[in-house]
Structure formats: structure tokens, C-alpha cells
């Protein structure tokens, strides 16, 4: 049985229950139970219409939970067997859930957890594993999140940009446990892009696909980091790249540029280069200019400085870098790289070591330490 296809049905079913009068938290609980039952029952007895099956079972679970009258339940059990397919407006229900789960009243962590559970159909255990926290902790986050949105009325459309941010957070989390969060984020963003026809939703999907395409080349089998310039481009997933580029081009053609489309455009230019030397850095700098204009983000300025170092030479990059706050994450690492390119390996080695000391990411720290060690071992003793 395809568990992912099964999870795909979760948001629709929650939506149907809500429309029938169940509140969000109760609907969500009932659907989780129905999903678990499906995993148990379907291998032996595959349903004719999986969605209708889930709706019926989830509805029954909801009634079970909310009504105590045994006689009534027995009557309902009698009519519950294999239901007739039902036609419902699945699109609006699912979109509604996306907005609910990314509601501004929720903290980012709660929004992420609720989205994975209600829209993604993941179990609490799977989400807890992915985020390396105890299951009880994740259960608390989810139930608090459900309480927070339980009174939210949906008479106006929610904020799509919040939904996109939540999905991007999921994508950037990497994975542990038995769920690949990057793949899960792509699956959900794909669904969202279909539901909304929004350019930025398409832009985010393109960005994720283009990043994901490079994943096989991004680390060595021993887990060490491979910088973009050194990656074996034959290992990039060309099918994902082609798909990402198509989606991006269609979005860009509609002339409503946003930050995700812009980041995707930069990723596409990297994907487009057959070798690192062929990278069109001039165009990349132009896209970073757009990104700085759109977001005014210091991180975008930092990345722009590094790109400028490639297009106009390391001195230009260092000059751009010197205008930025040295406390920015990766500022020291970027300076180390540009000094190395400029041929000043003594300064570069010192800065790499300093960047390694302040790194907050294991793979990155190890990479920076290795760069420093590499340059130091080349120095005359």
C-alpha cells in the first residue's frame, strides 16, 4: 500500500468532516485514527474508493468520540461497510487546511508540526522523530496548536506567504527517522501550487526541486560536505532540474516576481552550468540584486557579495563584504573563501578556522576545519 498516497487524502477528509460540523481538532484526531486503521485494514481488504472509505471511517471515529449512546453507534456500525463514493469540493477544503495550519497566531514550530500532521497526514511519532524531540513533546505542540486555531473562523482567505514560509521551513529541516522532510515538503508544495495557481507557490516548488536535484552530489558517502563548485554534476537529478526550470519559467512569464521565484532563478542558473566554470555569475549577481530589492535581507546581500567575487573577482567580493555586518552568519566563511581565491592563504586559513569555531552546523564546521587544515598544511613550516 502506498502510504504517501494515503496521506495525500488526509486534508480532504479533514475538510469534509469540518464541513459536516466537526471542529478542527476533533476532525483531525478522527482522520488520524482512520489513517491508522487504513494502514491496518487495506493490505487485506483494499477499498473500492479509498477517499470515501476514509471519510466514512473518520466520520464514524468522530461520532464515536463525540457520542456515548451505544445503541446509536450500533445502528451506524450496521450501515457502515463499504460506502458509496461521494463527490465533494476537495480543493477548497484542502486549501482551507493549509491556511489554518499556518495561521499567524501559531509559532513557526507549531505551524510546522500542525501542517505535517493535518495536511501531510504524518503521525505524531514520525514528526517527533524527524525533529529529534520526544513524542510527548511533539504531541503537546500539536495539541496546543490545535487549541490555538480551534476558534479561528475562516471567512476570508489566509495569508499564502505564511503557508509558503512554513513549507520552506519543513524543506530546510533535512530529515531523520522514517520520513524525508524535504520530499514531504515538495509533496505538499506541489499540492499547494496546484490548488492556488500562485506564482510564488510555483516559485517555491521550483526552488525546492532545483535544490533537491543536487542532493545526491551534496555530500560524500561518509557524510562530508561537497561545495557547489566541487560537486559531481553528473549526479544531479536532471529530471527534477528540468521540472523545476519548467515550473519556474511558467511562473516568471506571468511577471509577478517574488523572493522564491528569484531564489529559484539563481538555483536554475547553477543547475544550468555543465561545469562550475561555466556558471553565469553575471546573471546570478543581477538576480541577487532583485532579491536584495525584494527582501532587503542581509543574507541576500552576503550571498550577493560572494557571487560578485565570482563575477568581478575576489577583491570586488571582499569590498562588497566589508559593507556588511561582520556578525552575519557565514560572514567569516565567505571572507575566508574570497581571501583564498585572492591567493592570500594565510588570512584564508585563519578565517576558515575562526568560521569553524563559530559554525552552528556540524557538516559545515567539519568542512571549514578541513579547509583551514588544508591551507595550513600547504604553508612553509
Amino acid at each position: 500500500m502506498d502510504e504517501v498516497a494515503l496521506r495525500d487524502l488526509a486534508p480532504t477528509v479533514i475538510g469534509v468532516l469540518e464541513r459536516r460540523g466537526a471542529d478542527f481538532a476533533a476532525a483531525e484526531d478522527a482522520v488520524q485514527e482512520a489513517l491508522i486503521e487504513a494502514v491496518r485494514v487495506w493490505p487485506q481488504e483494499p477499498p473500492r474508493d479509498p477517499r470515501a472509505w476514509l471519510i466514512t471511517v473518520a466520520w464514524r471515529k468522530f461520532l464515536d468520540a463525540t457520542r456515548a449512546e451505544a445503541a446509536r453507534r450500533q445502528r451506524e456500525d450496521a450501515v457502515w461497510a463499504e460506502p458509496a463514493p461521494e463527490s465533494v469540493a476537495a480543493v477548497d477544503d484542502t486549501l482551507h487546511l493549509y491556511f489554518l495550519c499556518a495561521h499567524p497566531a501559531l509559532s513557526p514550530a507549531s505551524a510546522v508540526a500542525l501542517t505535517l500532521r493535518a495536511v501531510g497526514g504524518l503521525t505524531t511519532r514520525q514528526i517527533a522523530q524527524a525533529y529529534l524531540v520526544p513524542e510527548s513533546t511533539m504531541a503537546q505542540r500539536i495539541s496546543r496548536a490545535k487549541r490555538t486555531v480551534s476558534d479561528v473562523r475562516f471567512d476570508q482567505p489566509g495569508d499564502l506567504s505564511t503557508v509558503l514560509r512554513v513549507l520552506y521551513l519543513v524543506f530546510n529541516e533535512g530529515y531523520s527517522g522514517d520520513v524525508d522532510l524535504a520530499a514531504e515538503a515538495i509533496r505538499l508544495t506541489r499540492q499547494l501550487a496546484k490548488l492556488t495557481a500562485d506564482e510564488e507557490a510555483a516559485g517555491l516548488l521550483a526552488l525546492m526541486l532545483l535544490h533537491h536535484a543536487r542532493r545526491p552530489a551534496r555530500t560524500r558517502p561518509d557524510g562530508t560536505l561537497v561545495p557547489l563548485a566541487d560537486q559531481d554534476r553528473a549526479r544531479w537529478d536532471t529530471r527534477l532540474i528540468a521540472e523545476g526550470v519548467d515550473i519556474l519559467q511558467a511562473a516568471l512569464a506571468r511577471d509577478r516576481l517574488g523572493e522564491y521565484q528569484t531564489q529559484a532563478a539563481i538555483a536554475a542558473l547553477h543547475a544550468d552550468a555543465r561545469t562550475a566554470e561555466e556558471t553565469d555569475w553575471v546573471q546570478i549577481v543581477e538576480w541577487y540584486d532583485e532579491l536584495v530589492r525584494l527582501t532587503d535581507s542581509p543574507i541576500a546581500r552576503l550571498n550577493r557579495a560572494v557571487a560578485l567575487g565570482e563575477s568581478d573577482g575576489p577583491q570586488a567580493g571582499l569590498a562588497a563584504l566589508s559593507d556588511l555586518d561582520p556578525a552575519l552568519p557565514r560572514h567569516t566563511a565567505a571572507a575566508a573563501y574570497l581571501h583564498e581565491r585572492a591567493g592570500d592563504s594565510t588570512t584564508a586559513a585563519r578565517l576558515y578556522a575562526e568560521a569553524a569555531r563559530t559554525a552552528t552546523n556540524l557538516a559545515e564546521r567539519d568542512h571549514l576545519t578541513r579547509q583551514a587544515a588544508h591551507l595550513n598544511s600547504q604553508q612553509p613550516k
Partner: protein
Amino acid sequence: MAKYLLLKHYRGAPAAVNDVPMDRWTPEEVSAHLRYMREFSARLRETGEFVDEQALTPQGTFVRSDGPGKPPVTDGPFAETKDLIAGWMVIDVDSYERALELAGELSAAPGAGGEPIHEWLELRPFMSATQCITE
């Protein structure tokens, strides 16, 4: 979310403001302190920010490889000054500011005279294991 380690020290950290050893407190003060700690961790379980906590005994031992055979064991070359960790708590919070807030709260546990101890806690961010995507 980001994970932080809150470290309590037996020794090695600067002295607390209300620096009276626990065995000089009244039994009621000890109970109040323990209740505060228990309630603190219960609240974090409730907010979904709790990850782990453990207390450690003070019997730390230094061990070193000395080639084949038994490794040398000592209770420390710097017995007078060695840093002793009393226990830890791991939290998973939305921001550094939140981590500071919680550490501050933990440091304000009541001690002698029912007054907050104001002990120094060490707050250490976890090294993230996830891949960051950088161009």
C-alpha cells in the same frame, strides 16, 4: 526551532548571588526548591519545549588511554578547580531569546531564605546536524 543545553554546575561556574549550600537550607526551603524545579520542567513539557533532563553525580573521573593495558584513571589533575556538572536540561525553543528567558527562570529557583538563588547557568546551543543549502 533550536535546541539548547542548560548546564548546572556543582563547581566551575561563578558563585551564585544567594550562595548558601543546600544542606544549610531549611527542609521547607529544600522542598520549595525541588517543587520549583519540578514545576518548571512540567511547564516545558506542556509548552512542547521539553527534550530531556538528567542529573549527574559529582563523582567525575578522568580517564586516558595509556597504550595497551589498563587506562590510567584519576579523579582529576586539577581537583581544586575542575568543573563539575551537576546536571542538564535540553530544551527545543523558537528563539535564542526564549532560551535566555527560560535559563533566567531556572536560575531564579528559590534557595535559602526563600530567595532566588540567582545561580549561573550555562546555555549552549546544539550544533545542528541538518544540511543547510548554500549557493
